[in-house]
């Protein structure tokens, strides 16, 4: 069978599965819709969290990023996993004991302030929208490359599917679909990785193959270092970013991960505090499977690419090069007319241009794997994009129906009306996300730095202080949140939008790039909060009791059924 037929069969089967699960797990109450009734097992929640977290970017782009960045790519590997340690130790158990539906719920109640809640809602919606646009774009790209339909058609099919199960099932439908999507995406990621590991090193475990000897002799990483330095690049295992920048970017990604509302809200869905702790551990295990494989995929991809294309004549290049040339992901041009293609650091002399996404998307073809594996990668990419999109849409709809309507502007609506509002909000959000997917604003890549920077500079400190300081009051929290936000937004906007020409290390504050500045925003948030707290009245007694209560696990099940 050809690739297209396989792709239609495998993608069709997975979509039928997702829809079947959604019908089975319909939401009957607001509690079902917001937190899946609070009855998800820690293992299932761990898988759902992993699928929720691993987006189109993790699945399609990350290995490619690492293959071109080498050691510098470690910021993504450590940054996007280390945040789960912070979540498990500092946030998840306490927020589960608190036992409500959203992050703005916690901020609003803990700081006894509608202003604080509104600032939190605006952040949550902004962060989620920036993220979801990228997911819909990912859906469109996978559709157009593998199913040969227009990007627009692809995005619309994706919208209909997400709409169906997010609107019908809410958190309950999303959770169980995400469990299925995790299985699809991890299988799709591992199969080609294992094939290639065996081909290059005879070791079937990619994590070990990365440090193994090649079949032809010599360690893979040493060989790669040698090949790259010969071409004028930095050695693969050395990297070229300043240490302080690597440090701050890693921290911003870690803290941002722990502050992302669609990740935090997943820990409201398990029955007990104990389950919230365990669930964060399971989630990281499932994430780590992909995240420890990605650096191997990246290194194998770079090695294969250099071996098959560098200093070869165009005629002798393998079939996949011309296949992917059509999509514009790879380009060859014999600039010095010597009949050979040279991959060089200097853009004026370089004759081979490669998009990072090709390292995962074309991987099965580079390794000459069977057609069904190519189809599997398409289904995996779609699973990664759809699961993340659904989780984000839920945050948007919850923020609007619960935090804005029920808790702020229309407190008198009934539960039934609130549920209708949540479904309507999800529908509108899908349509807007789809619009951005079809007509992507030119700054999609830049706004990702925004999402993490904002989460790091706003939510993370405000929640941590809410739990670990009984004395923190609303004046301190609001002042801190606003300072952190303004500083981070101003810094990123200046270098990314207002004056992009100035975006070079010499102009950065302490040599910290816009990607890492969220860490500084977070520190400012902490400092301002503590200073303001010293000069303002302490929080009321019932707030101190609330804080003391969330620190103790017992009673989480009853706390959750009280509202």
């Amino acid at each position, binding site marked *: 069978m050809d690739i297209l037929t396989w792709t239609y069969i495998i993608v069709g089967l997975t979509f039928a599965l997702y829809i079947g699960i959604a019908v089975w797990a319909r939401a009957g109450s607001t509690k079902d819709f917001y937190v899946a009734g609070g009855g998800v097992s820690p293992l299932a929640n761990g898988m759902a969290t992993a699928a929720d977290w691993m987006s189109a970017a993790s699945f399609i782009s990350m290995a490619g990023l690492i293959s071109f960045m080498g050691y510098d790519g470690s910021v993504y*590997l450590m940054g996007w*996993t280390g945040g789960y340690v912070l979540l498990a130790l500092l946030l998840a158990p306490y927020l589960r004991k608190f036992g409500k539906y959203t992050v703005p719920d916690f901020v609003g109640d803990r700081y006894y302030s509608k202003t604080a809640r509104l600032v939190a809602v605006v952040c949550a919606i902004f962060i989620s929208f920036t993220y979801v646009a990228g997911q819909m774009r990912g859906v469109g790209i996978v559709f157009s490359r593998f199913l040969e339909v227009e990007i627009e058609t692809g995005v619309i099919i994706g919208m209909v599917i997400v709409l169906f199960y997010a609107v019908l099932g809410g958190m309950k439908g999303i959770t169980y679909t995400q469990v299925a999507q995790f299985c699809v995406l991890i299988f799709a990621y591992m199969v080609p990785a294992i094939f290639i590991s065996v081909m290059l090193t005879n070791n079937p475990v990619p994590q070990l193959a990365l440090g193994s000897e090649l079949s032809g002799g010599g*360690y*893979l990483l040493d060989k790669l270092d040698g090949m790259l330095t010969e071409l004028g690049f930095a050695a693969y*295992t050395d990297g070229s970013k300043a*240490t302080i920048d690597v440090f701050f970017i890693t921290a911003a990604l870690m803290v941002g991960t722990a502050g992302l509302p669609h990740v935090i809200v997943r820990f409201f869905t398990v029955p007990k505090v104990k389950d919230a702790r365990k669930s964060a*551990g399971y989630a*990281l295990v499932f994430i780590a499977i992909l995240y420890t494989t990605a650096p191997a995929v990246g290194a194998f991809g770079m090695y294969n690419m250099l071996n098959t294309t560098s200093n070869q004549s165009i005629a002798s290049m393998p079939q996949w090069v011309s296949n992917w040339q059509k999509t514009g992901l790879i380009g060859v041009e014999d600039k010095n007319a010597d009949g050979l293609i040279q991959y060089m650091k200097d853009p004026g002399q370089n004759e081979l241009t490669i998009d990072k996404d090709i390292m995962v998307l074309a991987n099965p073809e580079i390794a000459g794997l069977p057609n069904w594996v190519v189809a599997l990668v398409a289904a995996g990419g779609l699973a990664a994009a759809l699961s993340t999109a659904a989780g984000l849409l839920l945050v948007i709809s919850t923020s609007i129906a619960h935090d804005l309507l029920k808790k702020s502007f229309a407190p008198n609506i009934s539960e039934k009306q609130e549920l209708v509002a949540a479904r309507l909000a999800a529908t509108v959000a899908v349509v807007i996300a789809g619009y951005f997917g079809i007509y992507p604003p030119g700054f999609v890549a830049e706004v990702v730095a925004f999402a993490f920077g904002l989460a790091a500079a706003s939510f993370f400190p405000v929640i941590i202080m809410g739990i670990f300081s009984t004395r923190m009051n609303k004046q301190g929290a609001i002042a801190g949140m606003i300072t952190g936000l303004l500083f981070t937004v101003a810094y990123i906007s200046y270098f990314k939008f207002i004056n992009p020409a100035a975006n070079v290390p010499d102009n950065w504050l302490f040599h910290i790039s816009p990607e890492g500045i969220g860490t500084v925003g977070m520190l400012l948030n902490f400092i301002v909060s503590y200073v303001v707290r010293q000069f303002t009245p302490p929080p009321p007694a019932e707030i101190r009791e609330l804080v003391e209560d969330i620190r103790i696990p017992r009673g989480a099940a009853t706390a959750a059924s009280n509202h």
Partner: protein
Amino acid sequence: MHDKEKMQQYWKRNVRILLLLLGAWFTVSYLFGIVWVDELNQFRLGGFKLGFWFAQQGSIYAFVIIIFIYVWLMNKLDKEFDVDEE
């Protein structure tokens, strides 16, 4: 209801566990993977330079282990102070 002093003690022990484990978290990633990466790269682990291995593999394994140690220690602590959920 639990008496206040006992709960303060529970919280203190909890914070001590957190600081210990966050120390480990910081060491494997920020120290081994970033600050001391060049020094550690003098050593090898099979085909890996050691610092590079921590940055792209070892720190992630350590994160998983840290969370499960936390779960285990906290479950024990909850039982000791009789605040577990049954």
